[in-house]
Protein backbone atom coordinates (compact mmCIF):
# COMPACT_ATOMS: atom_id res chain seq x y z
CA UNK A 1 0.00 0.00 0.00
CA UNK A 2 2.74 2.45 0.92
CA UNK A 3 4.46 1.62 -2.37
CA UNK A 4 1.28 2.45 -4.23
CA UNK A 5 0.88 5.72 -2.36
CA UNK A 6 4.45 6.68 -3.13
CA UNK A 7 3.82 6.26 -6.84
CA UNK A 8 0.67 8.36 -6.57
CA UNK A 9 2.66 11.13 -4.90
CA UNK A 10 5.48 10.83 -7.43
CA UNK A 11 3.12 11.70 -10.22
CA UNK A 12 2.90 15.23 -8.85
CA UNK A 13 6.54 15.63 -9.79
CA UNK A 14 5.80 14.93 -13.45
CA UNK A 15 4.91 18.47 -14.30
CA UNK A 16 6.42 20.64 -11.62
CA UNK A 17 5.27 23.89 -13.10
CA UNK A 18 1.68 22.75 -13.24
CA UNK A 19 1.80 21.32 -9.74
CA UNK A 20 3.27 24.52 -8.35
CA UNK A 21 0.74 26.71 -10.15
CA UNK A 22 -2.09 24.53 -8.94
CA UNK A 23 -0.83 24.55 -5.38
CA UNK A 24 -0.45 28.33 -5.52
CA UNK A 25 -3.88 28.80 -7.09
CA UNK A 26 -5.52 26.62 -4.48
CA UNK A 27 -3.49 28.26 -1.70
CA UNK A 28 -4.51 31.76 -2.78
CA UNK A 29 -8.14 30.67 -2.84
CA UNK A 30 -7.68 29.19 0.62
CA UNK A 31 -6.10 32.40 1.91
CA UNK A 32 -9.04 34.42 0.60
CA UNK A 33 -11.37 31.93 2.22
CA UNK A 34 -9.61 32.18 5.58
CA UNK A 35 -9.71 35.99 5.43
CA UNK A 36 -13.41 36.12 4.67
CA UNK A 37 -14.23 33.61 7.36
CA UNK A 38 -12.15 35.65 9.79
CA UNK A 39 -14.07 38.80 8.88
CA UNK A 40 -17.28 36.92 9.58
CA UNK A 41 -16.12 35.35 12.83
CA UNK A 42 -14.53 38.57 14.08
CA UNK A 43 -17.68 40.44 13.28
CA UNK A 44 -19.56 38.14 15.58
CA UNK A 45 -17.08 38.53 18.41
CA UNK A 46 -19.15 41.37 19.88
CA UNK A 47 -22.28 39.28 20.20
CA UNK A 48 -20.38 36.20 21.25
CA UNK A 49 -18.63 37.87 24.14
CA UNK A 50 -21.43 40.25 25.09
CA UNK A 51 -22.01 40.34 28.83
CA UNK A 52 -25.00 38.20 29.59
CA UNK A 53 -26.11 40.24 32.58
CA UNK A 54 -26.00 43.62 30.87
CA UNK A 55 -28.90 45.56 29.37
CA UNK A 56 -28.90 48.65 27.25
CA UNK A 57 -31.62 51.29 27.17
CA UNK A 58 -31.92 53.85 24.39
CA UNK A 59 -34.38 56.24 22.82
CA UNK A 60 -37.23 54.34 21.22
CA UNK A 61 -36.94 56.18 17.92
CA UNK A 62 -33.21 56.15 17.32
CA UNK A 63 -29.84 55.47 18.77
CA UNK A 64 -28.78 59.04 18.14
CA UNK A 65 -31.61 60.67 20.09
CA UNK A 66 -31.04 61.56 23.72
CA UNK A 67 -32.77 60.59 26.97
CA UNK A 68 -33.38 62.86 29.96
CA UNK A 69 -30.69 62.36 32.59
CA UNK A 70 -33.23 61.69 35.34
CA UNK A 71 -34.23 58.40 33.65
CA UNK A 72 -31.17 56.85 35.22
CA UNK A 73 -32.71 57.16 38.67
CA UNK A 74 -35.95 55.50 37.53
CA UNK A 75 -33.98 52.63 36.05
CA UNK A 76 -31.89 52.16 39.18
CA UNK A 77 -35.13 51.68 41.12
CA UNK A 78 -36.39 48.80 38.99
CA UNK A 79 -36.25 45.53 40.99
CA UNK A 80 -33.50 43.23 39.68
CA UNK A 81 -31.29 46.09 38.52
CA UNK A 82 -27.96 45.96 40.32
CA UNK A 83 -26.12 48.89 38.79
CA UNK A 84 -26.78 51.39 36.04
CA UNK A 85 -24.57 53.87 34.22
CA UNK A 86 -24.79 56.06 31.16
CA UNK A 87 -22.76 57.40 28.28
CA UNK A 88 -22.99 59.99 25.49
CA UNK A 89 -21.54 59.67 22.05
CA UNK A 90 -19.23 62.66 21.83
CA UNK A 91 -18.03 62.35 18.25
CA UNK A 92 -14.68 64.01 18.84
CA UNK A 93 -11.70 64.03 16.54
CA UNK A 94 -8.00 64.67 16.84
CA UNK A 95 -7.68 68.13 15.17
CA UNK A 96 -4.29 67.11 13.79
CA UNK A 97 -5.55 63.79 12.39
CA UNK A 98 -9.11 64.37 11.18
CA UNK A 99 -9.15 61.07 9.30
CA UNK A 100 -8.46 58.89 12.32
CA UNK A 101 -11.66 57.42 13.58
CA UNK A 102 -12.07 56.34 17.18
CA UNK A 103 -14.95 56.27 19.61
CA UNK A 104 -15.11 59.19 22.05
CA UNK A 105 -17.55 58.75 24.91
CA UNK A 106 -18.58 60.92 27.80
CA UNK A 107 -19.22 58.56 30.70
CA UNK A 108 -20.10 58.65 34.37
CA UNK A 109 -16.83 57.19 35.56
CA UNK A 110 -17.82 56.12 39.12
CA UNK A 111 -20.72 53.98 37.83
CA UNK A 112 -19.24 53.23 34.41
CA UNK A 113 -16.22 51.27 35.61
CA UNK A 114 -18.16 48.73 37.74
CA UNK A 115 -20.73 48.15 34.98
CA UNK A 116 -18.09 47.80 32.23
CA UNK A 117 -15.99 45.40 34.26
CA UNK A 118 -14.15 43.98 31.22
CA UNK A 119 -12.29 47.27 31.07
CA UNK A 120 -9.03 46.78 32.94
CA UNK A 121 -7.50 49.87 34.57
CA UNK A 122 -4.90 49.81 37.32
CA UNK A 123 -5.86 51.23 40.73
CA UNK A 124 -3.50 54.17 40.52
CA UNK A 125 -4.92 55.36 37.18
CA UNK A 126 -8.43 54.79 38.39
CA UNK A 127 -7.93 56.96 41.47
CA UNK A 128 -6.24 59.62 39.35
CA UNK A 129 -9.06 59.64 36.81
CA UNK A 130 -11.86 59.73 39.37
CA UNK A 131 -10.23 62.72 41.02
CA UNK A 132 -9.45 64.63 37.82
CA UNK A 133 -12.32 66.64 36.32
CA UNK A 134 -10.61 66.98 32.91
CA UNK A 135 -9.23 63.47 33.02
CA UNK A 136 -9.63 60.88 30.31
CA UNK A 137 -8.59 57.28 29.77
CA UNK A 138 -7.78 55.65 26.43
CA UNK A 139 -7.51 52.07 25.23
CA UNK A 140 -4.00 50.70 24.76
CA UNK A 141 -4.40 50.32 21.00
CA UNK A 142 -5.42 53.97 20.59
CA UNK A 143 -2.71 55.12 22.97
CA UNK A 144 -0.13 53.42 20.83
CA UNK A 145 -1.49 54.88 17.64
CA UNK A 146 -1.75 58.45 18.91
CA UNK A 147 1.45 58.11 20.94
CA UNK A 148 -0.37 59.03 24.14
CA UNK A 149 0.99 58.41 27.61
CA UNK A 150 -0.25 59.12 31.09
CA UNK A 151 0.12 62.80 31.95
CA UNK A 152 -0.22 64.03 28.34
CA UNK A 153 -2.51 66.92 27.53
CA UNK A 154 -4.86 66.19 24.64
CA UNK A 155 -7.33 68.25 22.65
CA UNK A 156 -10.45 66.83 21.02
CA UNK A 157 -12.44 68.71 18.46
CA UNK A 158 -16.13 68.20 19.09
CA UNK A 159 -18.62 67.79 16.26
CA UNK A 160 -21.85 67.07 18.13
CA UNK A 161 -20.57 69.28 20.93
CA UNK A 162 -18.61 71.93 18.99
CA UNK A 163 -15.41 73.47 20.23
CA UNK A 164 -11.99 72.36 21.35
CA UNK A 165 -12.10 70.25 24.49
CA UNK A 166 -9.00 69.86 26.57
CA UNK A 167 -8.20 66.69 28.46
CA UNK A 168 -5.42 65.11 30.45
CA UNK A 169 -4.64 61.43 29.97
CA UNK A 170 -4.96 59.73 33.35
CA UNK A 171 -4.76 56.09 32.38
CA UNK A 172 -4.53 53.51 29.63
CA UNK A 173 -6.92 50.61 29.81
CA UNK A 174 -6.74 47.10 28.41
CA UNK A 175 -9.47 44.57 27.75
CA UNK A 176 -10.37 41.42 29.64
CA UNK A 177 -12.73 40.41 26.84
CA UNK A 178 -12.17 40.37 23.09
CA UNK A 179 -15.37 42.31 22.48
CA UNK A 180 -14.16 45.50 24.18
CA UNK A 181 -12.93 48.16 21.78
CA UNK A 182 -9.40 49.05 22.85
CA UNK A 183 -9.43 52.29 20.85
CA UNK A 184 -11.93 54.29 22.86
CA UNK A 185 -11.42 57.69 24.38
CA UNK A 186 -13.41 57.98 27.64
CA UNK A 187 -13.84 61.10 29.73
CA UNK A 188 -16.14 62.54 32.41
CA UNK A 189 -19.73 63.28 31.41
CA UNK A 190 -19.91 65.87 34.19
CA UNK A 191 -17.04 67.88 32.64
CA UNK A 192 -18.87 68.05 29.34
CA UNK A 193 -22.27 68.72 30.88
CA UNK A 194 -20.97 71.66 32.88
CA UNK A 195 -19.65 73.38 29.78
CA UNK A 196 -22.75 72.87 27.65
CA UNK A 197 -25.28 75.64 27.04
CA UNK A 198 -28.26 75.40 29.35
CA UNK A 199 -30.58 73.89 26.73
CA UNK A 200 -28.35 70.94 25.98
CA UNK A 201 -27.54 69.97 29.52
CA UNK A 202 -28.64 66.90 31.42
CA UNK A 203 -29.28 64.59 28.53
CA UNK A 204 -27.71 61.18 28.11
CA UNK A 205 -27.14 58.94 25.11
CA UNK A 206 -27.99 55.56 26.55
CA UNK A 207 -28.08 53.63 29.78
CA UNK A 208 -26.21 50.42 30.57
CA UNK A 209 -27.58 48.27 33.33
CA UNK A 210 -26.40 45.20 35.19
CA UNK A 211 -29.01 42.79 36.45
CA UNK A 212 -28.60 40.19 39.20
CA UNK A 213 -30.18 37.38 37.16
CA UNK A 214 -29.40 37.20 33.43
CA UNK A 215 -32.29 34.79 32.88
CA UNK A 216 -34.70 37.58 33.86
CA UNK A 217 -33.22 40.15 31.50
CA UNK A 218 -36.18 40.08 29.11
CA UNK A 219 -38.54 40.58 32.00
CA UNK A 220 -36.52 43.45 33.45
CA UNK A 221 -36.17 45.08 30.03
CA UNK A 222 -39.96 45.09 29.69
CA UNK A 223 -40.32 46.62 33.15
CA UNK A 224 -37.87 49.39 32.33
CA UNK A 225 -39.62 50.32 29.10
CA UNK A 226 -42.99 50.20 30.89
CA UNK A 227 -41.93 53.01 33.26
CA UNK A 228 -41.37 55.41 30.37
CA UNK A 229 -44.35 54.31 28.31
CA UNK A 230 -46.50 57.23 29.42
CA UNK A 231 -43.75 59.88 29.30
CA UNK A 232 -42.82 62.04 26.28
CA UNK A 233 -39.66 60.04 25.61
CA UNK A 234 -40.07 56.30 25.33
CA UNK A 235 -37.26 53.77 25.48
CA UNK A 236 -36.15 50.45 24.09
CA UNK A 237 -34.29 48.13 26.40
CA UNK A 238 -32.59 44.93 25.36
CA UNK A 239 -29.73 42.70 26.37
CA UNK A 240 -26.30 43.68 25.14
CA UNK A 241 -26.26 40.53 23.05
CA UNK A 242 -29.52 41.39 21.33
CA UNK A 243 -28.27 44.91 20.80
CA UNK A 244 -25.16 43.56 19.08
CA UNK A 245 -27.27 41.22 17.01
CA UNK A 246 -29.64 43.96 15.89
CA UNK A 247 -26.64 46.13 15.05
CA UNK A 248 -25.14 43.27 13.07
CA UNK A 249 -28.46 42.68 11.36
CA UNK A 250 -28.10 46.10 9.74
CA UNK A 251 -25.14 44.64 7.86
CA UNK A 252 -26.83 41.32 7.26
CA UNK A 253 -26.83 41.66 3.48
CA UNK A 254 -23.10 42.35 3.36
CA UNK A 255 -22.41 39.41 5.61
CA UNK A 256 -24.53 37.16 3.46
CA UNK A 257 -22.59 38.30 0.42
CA UNK A 258 -19.28 37.56 2.16
CA UNK A 259 -20.61 34.20 3.16
CA UNK A 260 -21.59 33.40 -0.42
CA UNK A 261 -18.30 34.71 -1.79
CA UNK A 262 -16.39 32.44 0.57
CA UNK A 263 -18.35 29.49 -0.82
CA UNK A 264 -17.74 30.65 -4.41
CA UNK A 265 -14.03 30.74 -3.62
CA UNK A 266 -14.23 27.10 -2.62
CA UNK A 267 -16.02 26.26 -5.85
CA UNK A 268 -13.25 28.02 -7.80
CA UNK A 269 -10.71 26.05 -5.83
CA UNK A 270 -12.56 22.84 -6.66
CA UNK A 271 -12.38 23.74 -10.33
CA UNK A 272 -8.67 24.56 -10.21
CA UNK A 273 -7.93 21.23 -8.57
CA UNK A 274 -10.36 19.31 -10.77
CA UNK A 275 -8.82 20.75 -13.91
CA UNK A 276 -5.30 19.79 -12.93
CA UNK A 277 -6.28 16.30 -11.89
CA UNK A 278 -8.40 15.67 -14.97
CA UNK A 279 -5.57 16.90 -17.20
CA UNK A 280 -3.08 14.63 -15.49
CA UNK A 281 -5.37 11.64 -15.83
CA UNK A 282 -6.00 12.32 -19.51
CA UNK A 283 -2.27 12.49 -20.21
CA UNK A 284 -1.59 9.28 -18.35
CA UNK A 285 -4.25 7.13 -19.95
CA UNK A 286 -1.58 5.07 -21.63
CA UNK A 287 0.40 4.59 -18.44
CA UNK A 288 -2.69 3.47 -16.62
CA UNK A 289 -3.34 1.03 -19.46
CA UNK A 290 0.18 -0.36 -19.07
CA UNK A 291 -0.37 -0.78 -15.35
CA UNK A 292 -3.64 -2.57 -16.05
CA UNK A 293 -1.85 -4.82 -18.55
CA UNK A 294 0.72 -5.70 -15.90
CA UNK A 295 -2.13 -6.83 -13.66
CA UNK A 296 -3.13 -3.76 -11.65
CA UNK A 297 -6.86 -3.62 -10.98
CA UNK A 298 -9.22 -0.69 -11.61
CA UNK A 299 -9.22 0.16 -7.91
CA UNK A 300 -5.44 0.47 -7.98
CA UNK A 301 -5.73 3.04 -10.74
CA UNK A 302 -8.44 4.91 -8.84
CA UNK A 303 -6.19 4.77 -5.82
CA UNK A 304 -3.36 6.38 -7.81
CA UNK A 305 -5.61 9.24 -8.91
CA UNK A 306 -7.15 9.81 -5.49
CA UNK A 307 -3.85 9.39 -3.68
CA UNK A 308 -2.27 12.02 -5.89
CA UNK A 309 -5.20 14.35 -5.22
CA UNK A 310 -4.94 13.84 -1.47
CA UNK A 311 -1.25 14.72 -1.53
CA UNK A 312 -2.02 17.77 -3.70
CA UNK A 313 -4.74 18.81 -1.24
CA UNK A 314 -2.42 18.40 1.74
CA UNK A 315 0.29 20.51 0.11
CA UNK A 316 -2.19 23.19 -0.99
CA UNK A 317 -3.77 23.21 2.47
CA UNK A 318 -0.43 23.47 4.23
CA UNK A 319 0.76 26.28 1.97
CA UNK A 320 -2.55 28.16 2.11
CA UNK A 321 -3.01 27.95 5.87
CA UNK A 322 0.72 28.37 6.41
CA UNK A 323 0.57 31.73 4.65
CA UNK A 324 -2.89 32.84 5.77
CA UNK A 325 -2.36 32.24 9.47
CA UNK A 326 0.72 34.41 10.04
CA UNK A 327 -0.46 36.94 7.47
CA UNK A 328 -3.87 37.53 9.02
CA UNK A 329 -2.75 37.25 12.62
CA UNK A 330 0.53 39.06 12.27
CA UNK A 331 -0.04 41.73 9.65
CA UNK A 332 -3.62 42.17 8.60
CA UNK A 333 -5.20 41.49 12.00
CA UNK A 334 -2.95 43.98 13.74
CA UNK A 335 -3.67 46.67 11.18
CA UNK A 336 -7.40 46.09 11.37
CA UNK A 337 -7.43 46.05 15.15
CA UNK A 338 -5.56 49.34 15.16
CA UNK A 339 -7.51 51.12 12.48
CA UNK A 340 -10.97 49.60 12.60
CA UNK A 341 -11.21 48.58 16.21
CA UNK A 342 -14.72 49.95 16.59
CA UNK A 343 -15.81 47.36 14.06
CA UNK A 344 -13.29 44.64 14.71
CA UNK A 345 -11.90 44.93 18.24
CA UNK A 346 -10.47 41.45 17.75
CA UNK A 347 -9.43 40.26 14.29
CA UNK A 348 -7.66 36.90 14.36
CA UNK A 349 -7.96 33.59 12.56
CA UNK A 350 -9.87 31.23 14.78
CA UNK A 351 -8.04 27.91 15.15
CA UNK A 352 -11.18 26.14 13.97
CA UNK A 353 -11.15 28.19 10.76
CA UNK A 354 -7.51 27.28 10.12
CA UNK A 355 -8.15 23.60 10.74
CA UNK A 356 -11.31 23.70 8.66
CA UNK A 357 -9.42 25.33 5.77
CA UNK A 358 -6.81 22.57 5.81
CA UNK A 359 -9.46 19.86 5.89
CA UNK A 360 -11.42 21.61 3.15
CA UNK A 361 -8.36 21.61 0.89
CA UNK A 362 -7.99 17.85 1.21
CA UNK A 363 -11.72 17.19 0.89
CA UNK A 364 -12.01 19.43 -2.19
CA UNK A 365 -9.01 17.82 -3.85
CA UNK A 366 -10.46 14.38 -3.22
CA UNK A 367 -13.87 15.48 -4.48
CA UNK A 368 -12.29 16.99 -7.58
CA UNK A 369 -10.55 13.68 -8.22
CA UNK A 370 -13.62 11.48 -7.89
CA UNK A 371 -14.85 11.65 -11.46
CA UNK A 372 -11.37 11.48 -13.03
CA UNK A 373 -10.62 8.52 -10.75
CA UNK A 374 -13.75 6.68 -11.81
CA UNK A 375 -12.95 7.35 -15.46
CA UNK A 376 -9.35 6.24 -15.05
CA UNK A 377 -10.52 2.96 -13.54
CA UNK A 378 -12.78 2.39 -16.53
CA UNK A 379 -10.36 2.90 -19.40
CA UNK A 380 -10.25 0.27 -22.12
CA UNK A 381 -6.78 -1.21 -21.83
CA UNK A 382 -6.50 -2.42 -25.41
CA UNK A 383 -7.79 0.85 -26.85
CA UNK A 384 -5.41 2.92 -24.76
CA UNK A 385 -2.45 0.74 -25.74
CA UNK A 386 -3.30 0.97 -29.43
CA UNK A 387 -3.29 4.71 -29.33
CA UNK A 388 0.16 5.89 -30.30
CA UNK A 389 1.72 8.71 -28.40
Amino acid at each position, binding site marked *: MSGLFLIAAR*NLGRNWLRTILTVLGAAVALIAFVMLRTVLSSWEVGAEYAAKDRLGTRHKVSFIMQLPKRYIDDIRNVPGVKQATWANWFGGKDPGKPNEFFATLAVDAPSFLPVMDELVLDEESKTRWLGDKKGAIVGDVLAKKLHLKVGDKYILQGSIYPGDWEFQIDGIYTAARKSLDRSQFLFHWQYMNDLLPEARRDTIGWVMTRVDDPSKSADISAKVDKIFDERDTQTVTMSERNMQLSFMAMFGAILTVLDIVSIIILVIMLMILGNTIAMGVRERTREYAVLRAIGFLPWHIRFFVLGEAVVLGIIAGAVGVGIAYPFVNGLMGKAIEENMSAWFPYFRVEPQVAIAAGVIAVVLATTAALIPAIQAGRISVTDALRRVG
Partner: protein
Amino acid sequence: MSTETENEHEPLASDTQQVVVPEQYRKSAVPPAMKTIIELKGVTKTFVRGKEPLTVLDGLTLDVHEGAFEALMGPSGSGKSTLLNLIAGLDRPTSGSAKVAGNDLSTMSDGDLARFRSRHIGFIFQAYNLMPVLTALENVELPLLLTKLGSADRKKRAQTALRVVGLEDRMGHYPRQLSGGQEQRVAIARAIVNDPTIIVADEPTGDLDRKAADDILTLLTKLNQEFKKTILMVTHDPAAADRATATRHLNKGKLE
Protein backbone atom coordinates in the same frame (compact mmCIF):
# COMPACT_ATOMS: atom_id res chain seq x y z
CA MET B 1 -7.66 -20.70 -11.21
CA SER B 2 -6.90 -24.07 -9.67
CA THR B 3 -5.11 -25.52 -12.65
CA GLU B 4 -2.43 -22.90 -12.96
CA THR B 5 1.15 -23.95 -12.86
CA GLU B 6 3.07 -23.12 -9.75
CA ASN B 7 5.46 -20.23 -10.07
CA GLU B 8 8.15 -19.99 -7.49
CA HIS B 9 9.24 -16.41 -6.98
CA GLU B 10 12.94 -17.05 -7.06
CA PRO B 11 15.57 -14.56 -8.09
CA LEU B 12 16.41 -15.01 -11.73
CA ALA B 13 20.14 -14.70 -11.61
CA SER B 14 22.79 -12.76 -9.84
CA ASP B 15 25.31 -12.02 -12.53
CA THR B 16 25.06 -10.84 -16.12
CA GLN B 17 28.20 -12.17 -17.65
CA GLN B 18 28.22 -15.55 -16.00
CA VAL B 19 24.54 -16.21 -15.52
CA VAL B 20 24.08 -18.79 -12.84
CA VAL B 21 20.83 -20.46 -13.70
CA PRO B 22 18.91 -21.55 -10.65
CA GLU B 23 18.25 -25.27 -10.44
CA GLN B 24 14.61 -25.07 -11.44
CA TYR B 25 15.39 -23.24 -14.67
CA ARG B 26 18.01 -25.65 -15.89
CA LYS B 27 17.23 -27.86 -18.81
CA SER B 28 17.61 -30.95 -16.75
CA ALA B 29 15.02 -29.72 -14.28
CA VAL B 30 12.39 -29.21 -16.95
CA PRO B 31 10.85 -32.12 -18.80
CA PRO B 32 11.40 -32.03 -22.55
CA ALA B 33 9.48 -28.90 -23.47
CA MET B 34 6.56 -30.50 -25.15
CA LYS B 35 3.76 -29.37 -22.90
CA THR B 36 1.32 -27.12 -24.75
CA ILE B 37 1.11 -23.84 -22.93
CA ILE B 38 -0.98 -21.82 -25.39
CA GLU B 39 -3.92 -23.53 -26.99
CA LEU B 40 -6.31 -21.57 -29.19
CA LYS B 41 -9.22 -23.33 -30.90
CA GLY B 42 -11.51 -21.73 -33.45
CA VAL B 43 -10.80 -18.27 -32.08
CA THR B 44 -12.76 -15.48 -33.70
CA LYS B 45 -12.43 -11.82 -32.81
CA THR B 46 -14.86 -9.34 -34.23
CA PHE B 47 -14.77 -5.63 -33.48
CA VAL B 48 -17.91 -3.62 -33.87
CA ARG B 49 -17.20 0.00 -34.48
CA GLY B 50 -20.11 1.93 -35.85
CA LYS B 51 -22.22 -0.21 -38.17
CA GLU B 52 -19.61 -2.40 -39.82
CA PRO B 53 -18.44 -5.38 -37.80
CA LEU B 54 -14.79 -6.19 -38.50
CA THR B 55 -13.69 -9.79 -38.13
CA VAL B 56 -9.98 -9.66 -37.41
CA LEU B 57 -9.39 -13.25 -36.31
CA ASP B 58 -11.46 -15.86 -38.05
CA GLY B 59 -11.53 -19.35 -36.55
CA LEU B 60 -7.87 -19.30 -35.70
CA THR B 61 -6.09 -22.25 -34.16
CA LEU B 62 -2.74 -22.12 -32.44
CA ASP B 63 -0.65 -24.39 -30.23
CA VAL B 64 2.52 -23.16 -28.60
CA HIS B 65 4.72 -25.47 -26.59
CA GLU B 66 6.28 -24.52 -23.33
CA GLY B 67 9.76 -23.10 -23.87
CA ALA B 68 9.12 -22.02 -27.46
CA PHE B 69 10.33 -18.72 -28.90
CA GLU B 70 7.95 -17.93 -31.71
CA ALA B 71 7.77 -14.97 -34.03
CA LEU B 72 4.44 -13.73 -35.36
CA MET B 73 4.52 -11.89 -38.65
CA GLY B 74 1.94 -10.43 -40.96
CA PRO B 75 0.92 -7.27 -42.71
CA SER B 76 0.01 -4.25 -40.70
CA GLY B 77 -3.57 -4.42 -39.52
CA SER B 78 -3.70 -8.20 -39.91
CA GLY B 79 -4.53 -8.70 -36.25
CA LYS B 80 -1.16 -9.59 -34.70
CA SER B 81 -1.62 -7.33 -31.71
CA THR B 82 -5.20 -8.48 -31.34
CA LEU B 83 -4.01 -12.08 -31.20
CA LEU B 84 -1.27 -11.26 -28.73
CA ASN B 85 -3.75 -9.41 -26.51
CA LEU B 86 -6.04 -12.44 -26.47
CA ILE B 87 -3.22 -14.73 -25.45
CA ALA B 88 -2.09 -12.27 -22.79
CA GLY B 89 -5.55 -12.08 -21.30
CA LEU B 90 -6.08 -8.41 -22.14
CA ASP B 91 -9.12 -9.21 -24.24
CA ARG B 92 -11.50 -12.13 -24.75
CA PRO B 93 -12.25 -13.93 -28.03
CA THR B 94 -15.66 -13.30 -29.56
CA SER B 95 -15.95 -17.06 -29.93
CA GLY B 96 -13.73 -20.09 -29.62
CA SER B 97 -11.58 -21.15 -26.72
CA ALA B 98 -8.28 -19.80 -25.48
CA LYS B 99 -6.37 -21.81 -22.94
CA VAL B 100 -3.17 -20.30 -21.65
CA ALA B 101 -1.03 -21.78 -18.88
CA GLY B 102 -3.95 -23.96 -17.88
CA ASN B 103 -6.49 -21.13 -17.71
CA ASP B 104 -9.55 -20.91 -19.89
CA LEU B 105 -9.38 -17.19 -20.67
CA SER B 106 -12.71 -16.98 -22.49
CA THR B 107 -14.65 -17.67 -19.30
CA MET B 108 -12.64 -15.66 -16.79
CA SER B 109 -13.80 -12.45 -15.10
CA ASP B 110 -11.93 -9.18 -15.57
CA GLY B 111 -10.42 -9.47 -12.11
CA ASP B 112 -9.27 -13.05 -12.71
CA LEU B 113 -7.78 -12.00 -16.03
CA ALA B 114 -5.84 -9.25 -14.28
CA ARG B 115 -4.50 -11.74 -11.74
CA PHE B 116 -3.70 -14.14 -14.58
CA ARG B 117 -1.67 -11.42 -16.31
CA SER B 118 0.14 -10.51 -13.14
CA ARG B 119 1.07 -14.14 -12.53
CA HIS B 120 1.76 -15.54 -15.97
CA ILE B 121 2.42 -12.77 -18.48
CA GLY B 122 5.36 -10.49 -19.00
CA PHE B 123 4.63 -7.64 -21.40
CA ILE B 124 7.14 -5.96 -23.69
CA PHE B 125 5.79 -3.10 -25.81
CA GLN B 126 7.18 -1.37 -28.84
CA ALA B 127 7.02 1.97 -27.01
CA TYR B 128 8.70 0.62 -23.81
CA ASN B 129 5.94 2.27 -21.75
CA LEU B 130 7.95 2.97 -18.65
CA MET B 131 6.64 5.31 -15.98
CA PRO B 132 8.62 8.52 -16.46
CA VAL B 133 8.43 9.55 -12.79
CA LEU B 134 9.95 6.31 -11.55
CA THR B 135 13.58 5.20 -11.70
CA ALA B 136 14.60 2.10 -13.61
CA LEU B 137 14.60 0.13 -10.38
CA GLU B 138 11.18 1.41 -9.34
CA ASN B 139 9.76 0.67 -12.78
CA VAL B 140 10.99 -2.90 -12.53
CA GLU B 141 9.57 -3.16 -9.01
CA LEU B 142 6.08 -2.17 -10.17
CA PRO B 143 4.67 -5.63 -10.92
CA LEU B 144 5.90 -6.83 -7.52
CA LEU B 145 3.64 -4.32 -5.76
CA LEU B 146 0.88 -6.76 -6.59
CA THR B 147 2.60 -9.59 -4.69
CA LYS B 148 2.93 -10.11 -0.98
CA LEU B 149 6.66 -9.45 -1.08
CA GLY B 150 8.09 -6.94 1.39
CA SER B 151 9.90 -3.90 0.10
CA ALA B 152 13.39 -5.33 0.74
CA ASP B 153 12.56 -8.49 -1.22
CA ARG B 154 10.98 -6.47 -3.99
CA LYS B 155 14.06 -4.37 -4.31
CA LYS B 156 16.36 -7.38 -4.36
CA ARG B 157 14.34 -9.07 -7.08
CA ALA B 158 14.16 -5.91 -9.15
CA GLN B 159 17.93 -5.53 -8.85
CA THR B 160 18.40 -9.11 -9.97
CA ALA B 161 16.18 -8.56 -12.99
CA LEU B 162 18.09 -5.42 -13.94
CA ARG B 163 21.32 -7.37 -13.65
CA VAL B 164 19.96 -10.00 -16.03
CA VAL B 165 19.35 -7.30 -18.64
CA GLY B 166 22.76 -5.76 -17.97
CA LEU B 167 21.62 -2.50 -16.39
CA GLU B 168 22.93 -2.92 -12.86
CA ASP B 169 24.71 0.43 -13.18
CA ARG B 170 21.57 2.31 -14.29
CA MET B 171 19.19 1.41 -11.51
CA GLY B 172 18.70 4.95 -10.22
CA HIS B 173 18.29 6.47 -13.68
CA TYR B 174 15.00 7.82 -14.90
CA PRO B 175 13.71 6.70 -18.32
CA ARG B 176 14.58 10.05 -19.90
CA GLN B 177 18.20 9.50 -18.88
CA LEU B 178 18.37 6.21 -20.80
CA SER B 179 18.74 5.36 -24.47
CA GLY B 180 15.94 3.61 -26.32
CA GLY B 181 17.73 0.29 -26.11
CA GLN B 182 18.30 0.73 -22.39
CA GLU B 183 14.68 1.70 -21.84
CA GLN B 184 13.58 -1.44 -23.62
CA ARG B 185 15.90 -3.48 -21.45
CA VAL B 186 14.33 -1.94 -18.35
CA ALA B 187 10.96 -2.89 -19.81
CA ILE B 188 12.24 -6.44 -20.27
CA ALA B 189 13.44 -6.52 -16.68
CA ARG B 190 9.96 -5.38 -15.65
CA ALA B 191 8.47 -8.16 -17.78
CA ILE B 192 10.57 -10.89 -16.19
CA VAL B 193 10.70 -9.69 -12.58
CA ASN B 194 7.54 -11.59 -11.72
CA ASP B 195 9.00 -14.72 -13.27
CA PRO B 196 6.11 -15.02 -15.74
CA THR B 197 5.22 -18.18 -17.63
CA ILE B 198 5.02 -16.42 -20.99
CA ILE B 199 6.60 -13.26 -22.35
CA VAL B 200 4.61 -11.46 -25.03
CA ALA B 201 6.46 -8.85 -27.03
CA ASP B 202 4.67 -6.62 -29.53
CA GLU B 203 7.28 -5.36 -31.98
CA PRO B 204 9.90 -4.97 -29.23
CA THR B 205 12.57 -3.76 -31.66
CA GLY B 206 10.29 -1.60 -33.78
CA ASP B 207 11.65 1.68 -32.41
CA LEU B 208 15.30 0.65 -32.16
CA ASP B 209 18.33 0.84 -34.44
CA ARG B 210 19.95 -2.34 -35.70
CA LYS B 211 22.55 -2.57 -32.95
CA ALA B 212 20.12 -1.96 -30.08
CA ALA B 213 17.61 -4.29 -31.72
CA ASP B 214 20.20 -7.06 -31.91
CA ASP B 215 21.03 -6.60 -28.23
CA ILE B 216 17.36 -6.92 -27.33
CA LEU B 217 17.01 -10.03 -29.49
CA THR B 218 20.08 -11.54 -27.86
CA LEU B 219 18.55 -10.83 -24.50
CA LEU B 220 15.27 -12.47 -25.51
CA THR B 221 17.20 -15.49 -26.79
CA LYS B 222 18.95 -15.69 -23.46
CA LEU B 223 15.67 -15.53 -21.58
CA ASN B 224 14.37 -18.31 -23.76
CA GLN B 225 17.38 -20.57 -23.65
CA GLU B 226 18.71 -20.03 -20.16
CA PHE B 227 15.55 -19.16 -18.28
CA LYS B 228 13.24 -21.33 -20.35
CA LYS B 229 10.74 -18.52 -20.88
CA THR B 230 8.12 -19.13 -23.51
CA ILE B 231 8.24 -16.09 -25.77
CA LEU B 232 5.75 -14.88 -28.35
CA MET B 233 7.03 -11.98 -30.38
CA VAL B 234 5.24 -9.91 -33.00
CA THR B 235 7.70 -8.45 -35.51
CA HIS B 236 8.02 -6.92 -38.95
CA ASP B 237 11.73 -7.52 -39.00
CA PRO B 238 12.87 -10.72 -40.79
CA ALA B 239 16.16 -10.57 -38.87
CA ALA B 240 14.24 -10.62 -35.64
CA ALA B 241 12.09 -13.48 -36.82
CA ASP B 242 15.27 -15.42 -37.63
CA ARG B 243 16.23 -15.40 -33.98
CA ALA B 244 13.00 -17.15 -33.03
CA THR B 245 12.71 -20.91 -33.10
CA ALA B 246 9.58 -20.74 -35.24
CA THR B 247 7.76 -18.12 -37.28
CA ARG B 248 4.05 -17.92 -37.99
CA HIS B 249 2.29 -15.70 -40.46
CA LEU B 250 -1.07 -14.16 -39.85
CA ASN B 251 -3.15 -13.51 -42.90
CA LYS B 252 -6.83 -12.88 -43.38
CA GLY B 253 -7.60 -13.82 -39.79
CA LYS B 254 -5.84 -17.16 -39.90
CA LEU B 255 -2.36 -18.46 -39.25
CA GLU B 256 -0.42 -19.94 -42.13
